[in-house]
């Protein structure tokens, strides 16, 4: 666990970090993001003491890092920087074995570990271990950079814009690989980027910074749905949420006040309510507004002669969704069951709204076309 307590960094009279507090849990991938000069890289480099805070304390597993030997501290933290971070005069193997060498591992153990890591990042050791970085592609170089950071199996890994120099396709590929690696290794990773897509794709939590302060530190989902600050919303991009359908929730698109009736209403009254609102179905709720079922205009017409009240004819056990469900799940549900509407209820069964095909088309149309 990494904890910042009132950390300030100033150069002369300018404060670049203005007293930040944050806590990063174990096995969490946290992304620092913000416009250039926001202090994200400075914050990262304070974790391995490449930059010392002016005041405040940083703890790793409750140990004050400022009281630790910086050399020893750094050897126990993986560090990945941009593409150029590999030493050009050392082979791939020598680069990976560097921290183990500094820690005086025996040669055979170092070599073994290098081979293991090359396999882990998908580069056959026999082919690559004796090559020089200049003989590798950018993506391969950065894979070695990641392997090197993992060499002594540190719990904490710092990554400073590791993929920013790569072309978009390679970048996406490495992001996926890192994500998969993290599922397997569960490291505590602090990742600096200026690319919001990258942050959303990788971060368990995202720390948005500006002018040396933290504006919001939250899960990607919450950042998109509840940006705490005008800048955050602007920085994320207002339309971003709609580009990531899994983040669009039922409550964002449902009809808030669907037409409803209690079961004791007569069929005539029900028809009257429907035609008055121009809809062809009505939700049946009890006095506490809990959803009981649904009745369509067709149902009512076919039972017109035999039934008197809604309770005799409405369809019970209708499929429903929760306000927190994502739009993707709703679409799946609707197409799998071939239904044109789905009521929205909360955990206690209270009716919150309704989604119909036409409401979907209307909302999505507004967001994407309008």
């Amino acid at each position, binding site marked *: 666990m990494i904890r910042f307590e009132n950390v300030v960094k100033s150069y002369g009279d300018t404060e670049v970090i203005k007293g930040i507090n944050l806590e990063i849990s174990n096995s969490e991938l946290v992304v620092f993001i913000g416009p250039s000069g926001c202090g994200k890289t400075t914050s990262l480099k304070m974790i391995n003491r*490449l930059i010392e805070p002016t005041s405040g304390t940083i703890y790793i597993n409750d140990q004050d890092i400022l009281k630790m030997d910086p050399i020893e501290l750094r*050897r126990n933290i993986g560090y990945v920087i941009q593409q150029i*971070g*590999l030493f050009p*005069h050392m082979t791939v193997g020598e680069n990976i074995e560097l921290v183990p060498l*500094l820690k005086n591992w025996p040669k055979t153990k170092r070599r073994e570990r290098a081979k293991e890591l090359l396999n882990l990042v998908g580069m056959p050791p026999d082919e690559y271990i004796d090559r020089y970085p*200049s003989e590798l592609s950018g993506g391969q170089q950065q894979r070695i950079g990641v392997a090197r950071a993992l060499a002594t199996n540190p719990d904490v890994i710092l990554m400073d814009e590791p993929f920013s120099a790569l072309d978009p396709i390679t970048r996406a590929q490495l992001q996926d690989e890192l994500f998969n690696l993290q599922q397997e290794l569960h490291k505590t990773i602090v990742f600096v980027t200026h690319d919001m897509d990258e942050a959303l794709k990788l971060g368990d939590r995202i720390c948005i910074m500006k002018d040396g302060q933290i504006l919001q530190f939250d899960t990607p989902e919450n950042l998109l749905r509840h940006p705490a600050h005008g800048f955050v919303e602007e920085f994320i991009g207002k339309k971003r949420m709609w580009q990531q359908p899994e983040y669009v929730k039922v409550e964002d698109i449902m009809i808030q006040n669907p037409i409803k009736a209690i079961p004791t209403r007569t069929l005539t009254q029900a028809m009257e309510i429907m035609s008055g609102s121009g809809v062809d179905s009505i939700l049946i709720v009890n006095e506490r507004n809990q959803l009981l079922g649904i009745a369509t205009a067709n149902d009512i017409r076919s039972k017109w002669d035999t039934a008197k009240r809604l309770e005799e004819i409405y369809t019970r056990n209708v499929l429903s969704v929760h306000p927190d469900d994502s739009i993707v799940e709703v679409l799946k549900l609707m197409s799998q069951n071939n239904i044109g509407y789905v009521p929205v209820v909360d955990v206690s069964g209270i009716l919150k709204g309704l989604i119909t095909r036409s409401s979907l088309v209307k909302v999505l149309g507004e967001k994407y076309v309008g």
Partner: protein
Amino acid sequence: MATINEYLTFMSDRIDQIFTLTGQHIYLTLIAVAIAILIGVPLGILITRVDSISGLVIGIANAVQAIPSLALLGFLIPFLGIGSTPSIVMIFLYSLLPIIKNTYTGLANVDRAMIEAGRGMGMTDAQLMRMVQLPLALPVIMAGIRISAVTAVGLTTLAALIGAGGLGQLIYRGISMVNNKMIISGAIPAMILALLVDFVLSIMERIVTPKGLKK
């Protein structure tokens, strides 16, 4: 005008003398450049660490370089007398600047990211210098040594003026006797020596260039 044959005969008659003088010449150059390396490289490293004195050190080395070599030799006589010692000191002083300058530039131009990567991985300052900075700066440092050595071969001809020997002896005697054959028999071996030193050091420069940096 004497024919080429006459020159060759003149030189082959004095072949033993030419070899002895060439030996002296190499000795003087080698000692002076070796001392310049032993002092210049550490000095170059020092001024990258203590940047406040880099201007001063390079300034002094520059000023020394600007003194006419003949005058410098004259200045040294009252302190060091004549013979090989003042000659070696003179050649050493002239060799110092390219070595200090190239060591400094070579080290200062090592990519900041490399240094930060090394430091971030937990290298001590000494490890960083030995494992990262020096290997990456070595080609530039070697280029400085090469410039020094080639210049030193030329300068060593002045050593004859104060009785230190070397191929300059034939050249000065030739001048005072107005004997072109004698001048040539000193100048040509000195030229060959300079070209040879340049060639050998260019190979060394290639050898010390880290394999990963070669194109």
